[in-house]
Every structure is written in C-alpha cells, then in structure tokens.
C-alpha cells in the first residue's frame, strides 16, 4: 500500500516538474517573439519621423535635393523590406537608411538657420534616441534569444525541448562592426 502511494506521489511530482519546465520554456519563447516585434515598433517610429524631418530640412536647404531624395528612397525601401520579411534584406535596407540619415545631418551642419530651428533640433533628438532604441531593442532580442537557447540546450530542459520541438532561435546580426548599440553624436 505504502509502495503504491510513494509511486503515485513520485509520478505526480514528476508531472508537476515537467509542467513547470514546459511553462518556463513557453514563456521564454514568447519573450523572444515579443522582443522581435518590439524591434519593428521602433523601426516604425523611425519611418514616421523621417517625412517630418525631410519637410523641415527642405524649408532651409532646397539645394540638397539629392540628399533628401536619398533619405526618402531609403525609407520606402526599408518599409518594403520590412513587409517582405527577409531579415537579411531588411538589415541591409536599414543600414542604407541609417547612412542616408547620417549624411542628411552632416549636410544640415552647413545651414546655421536650420541648426537653430527648434523643430529640427527636436526631430534630431527624437531620431537619435530612436536609433538608440532600435539598437537596444535588437540587444534585448538577442538577450532573450540567449536565455531561450540556453534553456532549451541545457539539462534538464533540453529533454523537454526535444520532445515538444522547441527550436533554436537565431541571433540578430548587424553589419560587421555594428553589433553594439550605435552611439551617434550629431
């Protein structure tokens, strides 16, 4: 009789442990998904800021059409790439956009009136911090992936991960030398 009770108790305990481990794996995987979508939120914020910036700069620097058009084109390319869903292509388009913005701000240096414009300064601050946020969101995504991959690959959760097909996730890789948060000083 006591043997039966002990066996039942052990089975119940094991099931409980398995359930808890399973839940923690699901939570870790959801966090990875959520942190991935956070990156898109920040990217979208940048897309929304750019038309304003282009309009403001236009008012002061009409002769810089090429630079302005490059930014606008890079923006719509990046939006297309985001909707396309190819991660490598999207990273590429984002890099082009960052470069175009950088040269726009470099050009703005030559226009003292523009640099004194309150609206421009505000947009500059917003864009700088959005660049930071994009970098931070990617960092948080990678941290989440690290935590998730660690837990599906280490004992004892790796047994569960195999049984319930929790797949290893890939890190977000920036361009070479661009893996850290981008520190842009305008």
């Amino acid at each position, binding site marked *: 009789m006591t043997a039966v009770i002990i066996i039942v108790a052990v089975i119940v305990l094991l099931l409980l442990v398995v359930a808890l481990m399973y839940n923690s794996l699901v939570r870790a995987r959801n966090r990875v998904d959520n942190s991935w979508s956070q990156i898109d939120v*920040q990217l979208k914020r940048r897309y929304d800021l750019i038309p304003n910036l282009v309009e403001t700069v236009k008012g002061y620097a009409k002769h810089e059409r090429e630079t302005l058009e490059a930014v606008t084109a890079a923006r719509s390319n990046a939006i297309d790439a985001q909707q396309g869903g190819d991660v490598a292509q999207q990273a590429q388009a984002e890099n082009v956009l960052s470069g175009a913005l950088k040269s726009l701000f470099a050009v703005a240096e030559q226009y003292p009136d523009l640099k004194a414009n309150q609206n421009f300064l*505000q947009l500059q601050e917003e864009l700088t*911090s959005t660049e*930071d*946020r994009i970098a*931070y969101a990617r960092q*948080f995504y990678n*941290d989440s992936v690290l935590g998730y991959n660690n837990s599906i690959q280490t004992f004892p959760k790796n047994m569960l991960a195999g049984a319930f097909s929790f797949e290893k996730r890939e890190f977000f890789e920036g361009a070479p*030398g661009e893996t*850290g948060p981008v520190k842009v000083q305008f």
Partner: protein
Amino acid sequence: MTDSGAATSAQAVARTDFYREIRRNKWRTFVILAAFVALIVLAGVAFDILLGFGVAGVIVAFVVAVILAFVSYFNSDKVALMVTGAKPADGPEYRRYHNLVEGLCIAAGLPKPRLYVIQDKAPNAFATGRNPKHSALAVTSGLLEIMNRVELEGVVAHELSHVKNYDILASTVAVTAVGTIALLSDIGLRFWIFGGRRRDSDNAGAAGAVLAIVAMAFLVLAPLAAQLMQFAMSRKRELLADATGVQLTRYPPGLLSALKKLQTDKAVVHHATRATAQLWIESPLDREEGKKGSWLNRLFDTHPPLEERIRVLESM
C-alpha cells in the same frame, strides 16, 4: 586600444567579464545574507544565555523588525522623493532624459519608471520603488547639466540596474536583519541590567559568569557588526549595479567617464542625509578624498570608492 583589432578583442573580453562580475556580486550578496542569518542565530544564543528565552526573543525581535522594515519598504519611494525635494520631470527640456530612459528600459525589458528632477547643483542620481512597476528615478539638475548623452546613459543604466536587481528589496532585507539584531541586543541588555536575568546563571559559578560576560559583550558588539555588514552589502550592490548597467549599455566608457566627472566634482547634495545615502549613484555626503583613505572609515561607507569602481570598469 589604438587599432580596431585591439578594440574588438577588448569588447569580447567585456562580454564575458560583466557576466562574471554580475554572478560574483550576486554570490557576495548571498554570502552576506547567510552571515546575517548566522549573526541573528548567535545573538539569539547570547540572549538565551542571559535571559533564558532565546527562541521567543528572536521571534519577537524578528516580527517587530519585519513590520518596521516592510512599512518603510512599501513607502520607500514616497519618502525618498519627498525628503530629497524631487519634482516630476515634465516639460520639453527633459525630452532627452525621457528618451534615454525609454531606450534603456527597452534594453532591460523594464517598464518605464516615473522620472523626477532635483534642483541641485551637485551631480547625482538615485532610483527607488519596491519593484519595477512602482519604480521612480531622480536625477539632479547638476547631473543633467554636466553629463553628455553617453555619460548620462551610463548613470541612468546604473540606476535602472538597481531597479532590475531588486536592490530596494535587498536593502530592506538587510535593514530587517539589522533591526532584529539591534532589538535583541537592546532588550537583552536592558533586561539583564535591570535584574531580569536567568535564575540559574546567578549560581552557576565561574564558568557561568564568564559565559554571561561573553554573551553580553556579543550583544553589545552585534548591532555594530550588523551595520557594517549592511554597508558592505550596499557597496557590493553598487558594484553589481555598475556591472549590470554596462550589460544594458554595452558601453563601459560611458559610465566610466561619468564616474570620472563625479570624481572631479566636489559639490555635496543638499537634500541628502545619512538615511538616504545608499540610494545615490555615488555617496552624496563626504567628497574629500583624504578622509576616505583609512581602512576604518571605509567600513562605514555605503559606496565603494570611485577609484575602485573606475578600476573595475576599466577592466571591462
């Protein structure tokens, strides 16, 4: 670090290093908490030798200390913000401050804390609140003035780390332990002096008398030891927050250069008291380097010396 090759290899070292630094500091906190438990048990034994109801004494002291500490724990943010005169950071001039915090919160996966500013020339900052959902961050106007974006980010990341690491809870636990020991000591010594002493210790002979003296000496010294341990823990949590902060920004030079600026600034925060000292990014009280030199003085510090923190960051 003159060429890019050296820079990347230094970054590779940094990645592993702050993880190790974080683990090491968490372990140190655990050791100190274990020492607190041991100290409470020993104080209980000493109490028992003197008065004969050690278990009851420990329970009473512990319950009282828990109630006191947790009342202050739930009101920690309100009290700290009130006594420092912090005002909500509303208005366009604080846009950069808000943006920085939002970015770092994304990196840390934390909700955004309420933001406050203290009108004070001395550069300093603190975080408070019992958990990430109820957290608040305050910086002085002096800090916003002298720090550039990257440095400010380093400081804010350090403060957010206090929130992320539940340091307010950790210090509440320490305060509880210190309170328990102080109460045990107080009650024990008072009863013993005013004749409530254990009957059998009166006629237990020389051995009993010696034991009683040892127990009494222990109860006199225990509160001091507990206080020193509390300060030691506070210092370790500061180092931990430095390391976790770097984990957020992935950029040690930011906090490093901020700490160096703090080092050259000698102003003292007006609204700081001994009671709030352990909240700040650096000790808001004595800033004279000469005074900090002695080993004995360091024991009573809530923060490790800036030189030591800079050295640790430079190795990252």
